[in-house]
């Protein structure tokens, strides 16, 4: 595709830069890994007055001094001469701080447009900005915008294109050079400009953000509130997913008979029909009906909280534990990401600059259960809770068990980090600075669309791609006999002694091994194994599931051990490949698999031994 010009977006974090990017490019965007760079850049395009523009979203930075990989990328790209114009997005409520970056950018290139965003927020705080004065002081075009409402976007496109095509030539005012460090000089000049441009001052600590933070990051209430919020999210996910799961299962299993009839009409022989329908299709149907509803609830809820600005507060509340574990504070963020998808959490560890601390974050990410493991946890939690508490109380009990499982994962993350930083990854901690941006009302529409497209569908698609061949393989193993028993039964038989010692059984261990491609298919494989040779049954309601499990010797201890092993075992294939790619070493990748597995083996065996001794 031919482009008339290339525009780069720069700006501090939390200025609404990505909202501007989304508003400019709409859905015409993709993420690209630029050669030689570890930082992912988003790219998109828009058309304006017959002109097609490519837009590159540079990483959000406070500066261009190249003291972090993001800054280096932003600086190098601006200096490369590739962009025809640079749009710097600034926060209208915090102009002085943002001008520091603007003054740095105009030292590198004259083709700059300043976009003063969050104008609605500034008006709400009764800040008056003399933008013509700002234009005069800086010598570059200044466009006021409110990205969320679209205010000023046309003017921004206009100005950016005119600068890019050379129709408008900004003449940035040089910063007076006196003695002192560059940052000090730039901030002096920024103060000077802000004092001429901004009228009205917000008092720190008086706004909604400060009032909320007094609660959310309070030493007394912070952790408790966070746990309560998380419990609420899990409860909504568990309760909300129940009915749609059954509905989906009903529809998909009806689809099965339709598929069967269709294959019959087409004259497909029985030996092919069975593996296709009873193996592949049923595996798929299970994965979709069990996975889709909880994901479709959890991901949007999580993204809403993320959009609201909660993640940095979680990092604030957890930092003292990370400090004690010798880990970097940003590991709280990669860990939170891991709850969605461990592979994503491992890629996110790039935000940690120190290689040693980044490795700690990568090796321990799998200790928190990802979304693909939620259905397992929810199922085990529901089975255990419903045995004790009937009715709606069961849902609360299940949420409590899932929450406890998550908390255990977090505690294990601290323990594993401590273990690593005390042994193979010893070293001095690097510095950690965390910005607590203002809370912002989540953009519900965008969040719903993006969390569905970027997260839910992506994860579901991956599971589906893996579930089909795995369903087929499991069916074959369950139906091909050698020496009187099926291959599946023989394999499970070999694993049985180890499984028993852990309070599980051979089939469960085999399910986890065959489920290496994706955790979502572990439970379906185990069920296929239990119902061997008859393929996956129509197991829609809890009663049916429970009676199958009881018939196969399950007790509450089995469910509990299953829960533990679901949290602590090797990462899925995608995660392992991601780790290999990120750390580039087979040894560390193996350690990342070994560490949680040893944890799980030890924990299950210990629990089982204690319970057995107790019962004697």
């Amino acid at each position: 595709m031919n482009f008339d010009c290339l525009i780069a977006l720069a700006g501090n974090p939390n200025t609404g830069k990505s909202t501007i990017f989304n508003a400019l490019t709409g859905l015409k965007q993709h993420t690209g890994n630029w050669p030689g760079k570890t930082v992912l850049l988003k790219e998109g395009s828009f058309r304006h007055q017959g002109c097609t523009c490519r837009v590159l979203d540079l990483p959000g930075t406070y500066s261009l001094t190249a003291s972090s990989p993001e800054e280096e990328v932003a600086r190098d790209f601006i200096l490369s001469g590739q962009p025809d114009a640079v749009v710097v997005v600034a926060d209208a409520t915090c102009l002085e701080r943002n001008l520091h970056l603007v003054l740095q950018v105009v030292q590198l290139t004259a083709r700059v447009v300043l976009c003063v965003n969050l104008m609605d927020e500034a008006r709400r705080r009764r800040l008056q900005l003399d933008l013509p004065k700002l234009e005069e002081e800086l010598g570059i075009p200044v466009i006021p915008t409110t990205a969320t409402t679209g205010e000023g976007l046309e003017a921004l496109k206009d100005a950016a294109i005119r600068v890019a095509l050379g129709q408008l030539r900004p003449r940035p005012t040089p910063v007076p050079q006196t003695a002192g460090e560059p940052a000090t000089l730039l901030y002096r000049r920024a103060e000077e400009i802000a004092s001429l441009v901004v009228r009205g001052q917000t008092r720190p600590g008086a706004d909604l953000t400060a009032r909320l933070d007094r609660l959310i990051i309070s030493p007394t209430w912070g952790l408790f509130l966070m746990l309560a919020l998380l419990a609420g999210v899990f409860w909504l996910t568990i309760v909300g997913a129940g009915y749609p799961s059954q509905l989906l299962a009903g529809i998909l299993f009806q689809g099965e008979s339709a598929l069967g009839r269709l294959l019959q009409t087409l004259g497909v022989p029985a030996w092919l029909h069975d593996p296709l329908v009873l193996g592949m299709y049923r595996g798929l149907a299970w994965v979709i009906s069990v996975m889709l509803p909880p994901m479709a609830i959890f991901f949007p809820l999580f993204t809403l909280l993320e959009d609201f600005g909660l993640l940095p507060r979680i990092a604030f509340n957890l930092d003292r534990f990370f400090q004690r574990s010798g880990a970097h504070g940003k590991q709280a963020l990669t860990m939170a990401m891991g709850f969605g998808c461990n592979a994503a959490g491992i890629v996110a560890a790039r935000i940690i600059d120190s290689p040693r601390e980044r490795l700690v974050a990568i090796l321990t990410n799998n200790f928190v259960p990802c979304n693909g493991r939620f259905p397992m946890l929810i199922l085990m939690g529901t089975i255990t809770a419903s045995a004790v508490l009937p009715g709606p109380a069961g849902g609360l009990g299940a949420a409590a068990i899932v929450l406890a499982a998550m908390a255990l994962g977090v505690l294990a993350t601290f323990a594993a980090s401590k273990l690593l930083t005390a042994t193979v990854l010893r070293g001095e901690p690097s510095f950690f600075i965390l910005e607590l941006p203002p809370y912002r009302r989540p953009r519900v529409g965008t969040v719903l669309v993006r969390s569905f497209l970027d997260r839910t569908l992506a994860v579901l698609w991956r599971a589906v791609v893996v579930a089909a061949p795995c369903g087929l393989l499991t069916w074959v193993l369950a139906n091909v006999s050698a020496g009187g028993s099926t291959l599946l039964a023989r394999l499970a038989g070999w694993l049985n002694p180890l499984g028993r010692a852990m309070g599980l059984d051979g089939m469960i261990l085999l399910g986890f091994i065959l489920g290496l491609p994706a955790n979502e298919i572990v439970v379906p494989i185990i069920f296929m194994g239990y119902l061997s040779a008859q393929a996956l049954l129509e197991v829609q309601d809890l009663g049916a599931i429970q009676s199958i499990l009881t018939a196969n010797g399950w007790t509450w201890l089995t469910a509990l051990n299953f829960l533990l092993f679901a949290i602590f075992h090797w990462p899925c294939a995608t995660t392992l490949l991601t780790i290999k790619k990120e750390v580039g070493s087979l040894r560390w990748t193996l350690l990342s698999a070994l560490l949680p597995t040893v944890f799980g083996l030890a924990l299950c065996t210990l629990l089982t031994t204690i319970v057995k001794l107790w019962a004697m």
Partner: protein
Amino acid sequence: MTLADLAPGRWGTVHSLRAQGILRQRLLDLGLVPGTPVQLQFVDRGGTLAAYYVRGAVLALRRSTAEQVLVSPQGELL
């Protein structure tokens, strides 16, 4: 005194930075240049992390980092 010695709600003015290298650059880039007023807003339990108001933003620094920033106290509680 350093940033780590500020009491909650109190203001100080940045005097100079002890830090060198990348940390120094980072602190300067975030606006902690000499002459900048800073207010301590929140401290976590145990006092290992504290959030400061710096030029319109709230930044949380670990104690070891806050000790790198020398400040002179400002009397009034705003």
